[in-house]
C-alpha cells in the first residue's frame, strides 16, 4: 500500500515535470509578450509529429531528434509571430490578451484540421528497445522514458535560465518583460525580443512534444488537453513566473497521481481542473505570484 503510494507519487512528480515543461513555453511567451497562445497544445503536437516522423522515416532516436524539433518549431513560432501575433502588439494589454486568445483558438482549429489531413487521425507513438527498461530504487520503479522527462526538463530549464541570465538577448528579454516601454526607450528592439521569445516558447513546446510522443501518444485532437494543462500549470505557478511554472507542473502531476490513487484515474484530469478553478477564484495571481500580477 505504502509502496504503491510511493510509486504513484514518483510517477506524479515525473509526469509533473513534463507538465512544467509544456507550460514553460506558454509562460515564457505570456510573460514577455502578453500573448495568450492557446494554440500551444498544437505546437506540442507538431513537436511530437516531428519526432515521430524523424523516428519512423529516418530512424532517428527520439532524444536525438530533439534538436531537429527545436529548429522546426522555432521557425514555425517565428512565422506565426510575424504573420499573426505581431498584428496585436499595438493593442492595450487587456484587449491584446483577449485578441491573441481568440486568434490562437482560430489557429488551433486550423492546425488540428491540417494535422488530420496530413498526419491522419491515427494515434501515434514512439517506442524503442530501451524504453521498457527501468531501474528500481527503494522498491519504486523508475521507467527510463519517464526519467528522461525529468532529465530533459532540467536540461532545458538550465539552458533557458542561462540564456535569460547570461546573454545580452536574455537581458533584453527580461527588461522587456519588466517594462516594454522603458526597454524600448533604452534602444531594445521590441519586435526582435517578441519574435525571439515567441519562437523560443514554440521550441520548448516542441521539446515537450517529443517527450509526449515517447511517454503517451500523439494525435491531431490532443492540443486542447495539453493547452489546458499548460494553462493550469501557468496559473498555479503565477503568470510568467518561470521557476513557479515548474513547481506548478509538479503540483499538477502530484494532484493527478494522488487522485488516481485514492479515487480513480478517470478523475485525474477533473481534479486538475477543479484545482485550477479554485486557484483562479481564490488566488488568481498564482500560488507563488505577487499580488500585483
Amino acid at each position, binding site marked *: 500500500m505504502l509502496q504503491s503510494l510511493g510509486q504513484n507519487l514518483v510517477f506524479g512528480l515525473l509526469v509533473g515535470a513534463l507538465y512544467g515543461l509544456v507550460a514553460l513555453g506558454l509562460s515564457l511567451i505570456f510573460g514577455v509578450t502578453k500573448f495568450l497562445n492557446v494554440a500551444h497544445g498544437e505546437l506540442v503536437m507538431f513537436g511530437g509529429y516531428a519526432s515521430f516522423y524523424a523516428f519512423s522515416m529516418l530512424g532517428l532516436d527520439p532524444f536525438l531528434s530533439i534538436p531537429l524539433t527545436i529548429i522546426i518549431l522555432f521557425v514555425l513560432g517565428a512565422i506565426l509571430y510575424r504573420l499573426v501575433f505581431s498584428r496585436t502588439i499595438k493593442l492595450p494589454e487587456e484587449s491584446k490578451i483577449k485578441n491573441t486568445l481568440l486568434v490562437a483558438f*482560430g489557429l488551433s482549429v486550423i492546425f488540428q484540421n491540417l494535422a488530420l489531413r496530413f498526419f491522419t487521425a491515427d494515434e501515434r507513438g514512439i517506442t524503442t528497445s530501451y524504453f521498457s527498461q527501468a531501474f528500481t530504487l527503494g522498491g519504486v520503479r523508475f521507467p527510463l522514458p519517464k526519467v528522461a522527462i525529468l532529465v530533459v526538463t532540467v536540461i532545458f530549464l538550465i539552458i533557458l535560465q542561462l540564456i535569460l541570465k547570461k546573454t545580452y538577448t536574455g537581458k533584453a528579454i527580461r527588461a522587456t518583460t519588466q517594462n516594454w516601454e522603458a526597454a524600448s526607450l533604452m534602444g531594445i528592439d521590441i519586435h526582435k525580443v517578441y519574435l525571439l521569445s515567441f519562437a523560443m516558447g514554440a521550441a520548448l513546446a516542441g521539446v515537450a512534444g517529443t517527450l509526449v510522443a515517447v511517454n503517451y501518444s500523439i494525435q491531431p485532437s490532443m492540443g486542447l488537453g495539453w493547452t489546458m494543462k499548460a494553462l493550469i500549470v501557468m496559473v498555479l505557478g503565477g503568470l510568467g513566473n518561470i521557476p513557479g511554472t515548474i513547481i506548478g507542473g509538479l503540483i499538477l502531476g502530484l494532484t493527478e497521481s494522488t487522485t488516481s490513487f485514492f479515487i480513480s484515474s478517470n478523475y485525474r484530469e477533473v481534479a486538475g481542473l477543479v484545482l485550477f478553478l479554485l486557484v483562479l477564484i481564490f488566488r488568481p495571481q498564482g500560488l507563488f505570484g505577487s499580488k500585483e500580477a
Partner: protein
Amino acid sequence: MKKNNIIKLILIIVVVALLVVLPLVIKNDSTINLVILVLLYILLASSWNILGGYTGQTNLGHAAFFGVGSLTTRLLWVNGVPFLLSFLAGGVVAVILALIIGAPAFKLRGVYFAIGTLALAQMLNLTVGNILPEMSYNPDLANYQLLPRYYLFLGLTLITILTAAILVKSRIGLGMMAVREGEDAAESLGISALKHKLIALSISAFFAGMAGAAFAYYHVSFYYYMPFGSEWTFDPMMMAYIGGTGTIIGPIIGAVFFVLLKQLLVWNVGEYHLIIFGTLFILIVLFLPGGLVEIWQKFRTFLTKKTKRRKKVLLKATIQNEDGIQRE
C-alpha cells in the same frame, strides 16, 4: 428610416414564411436536416452573442450549457418523464448551472473568465464521459418524424432571436452594453456589472440549454458527453465573430455562412471548411472586429454617399441650367 424598417419587416416575414412552408414543399430529408443544423447553430451563436457579444464576456464554456440541457432532457425523457416537461427542464437546469457558477466565475475578469469557463466545460465533459460512458438512444425511435423536430428548432430559434432583439433595446440590454464598454465606468454610473452579467449569462445559458434539449429530441443516438465537446463552444463563437458580434443579424449570417461553406467543401475533402473558417475568423479578429456586418455597413454607407454625391451633381447641374435659362 421608417421606409427602411417596413422593408426590413417585410423581409423578415417573407423569410419566416419561407422557412415555415419549406418542409411542406421540399420533402427531401437531407435538406430539412441541413436547415435544422443551420437553426441549431443560429441558436448557439445567438445565445453566445448575448453574453459574449453584447456584454463583452468571452465565454469559452458555452458547450457546458448546451451539454447540460441535452443531458437533462435526454435522461428525463428516457426515464419516462413526459417529453414537454423534460424538454423545459433542459433550459431550466442550464439556468441553474449558470446561477451556481455565475457569481464565482464573474469574480474573474476578462481573460480569467474565458479560461475559467473553458476549464468548467472541459471538467463537465470529462466527468459526464466518466459517469455515463454509454450511448443514449432516442426513446421515440419507433415513430420518429422529422417535421415536429424541424418546427421545434424553428420556433426556438425565432424565440431566441426575438428575445435577443427585445433585450438589447431594453434598459437591461443597454446596461449590458455599458458593462461591455467599460466595467468601472458602468459601475460609476450606478449600473451593477455583476447583476447585468448574471442576467446575460442566465439568458444565454437558458437558450443554449433549450438548444441542447431540442438536440436531445432530434438526435437518434449520441454519447451523453458529446454535446459537452469544445467544438460546440468554438464553432458558434467563430460564427458570431465572423457574422459580427454584438448585432442580432451577425450570428445568423455567421451560422448560415458556416453551414454553406461546409456543404460546398464537403464534396472535396474532409474538414477543409474548418481551415477556411478558422482563417477567416483570425482575419476578422485582427482586422475587422465588426465582422461581415461591418463590411456590409461600410459598403452601404459607401453606396449612399455615392448616390448622394450623384444627386448633388445633378442638383448643381439643374441649378446651372436654370441660371443659364435666366441669363437668356
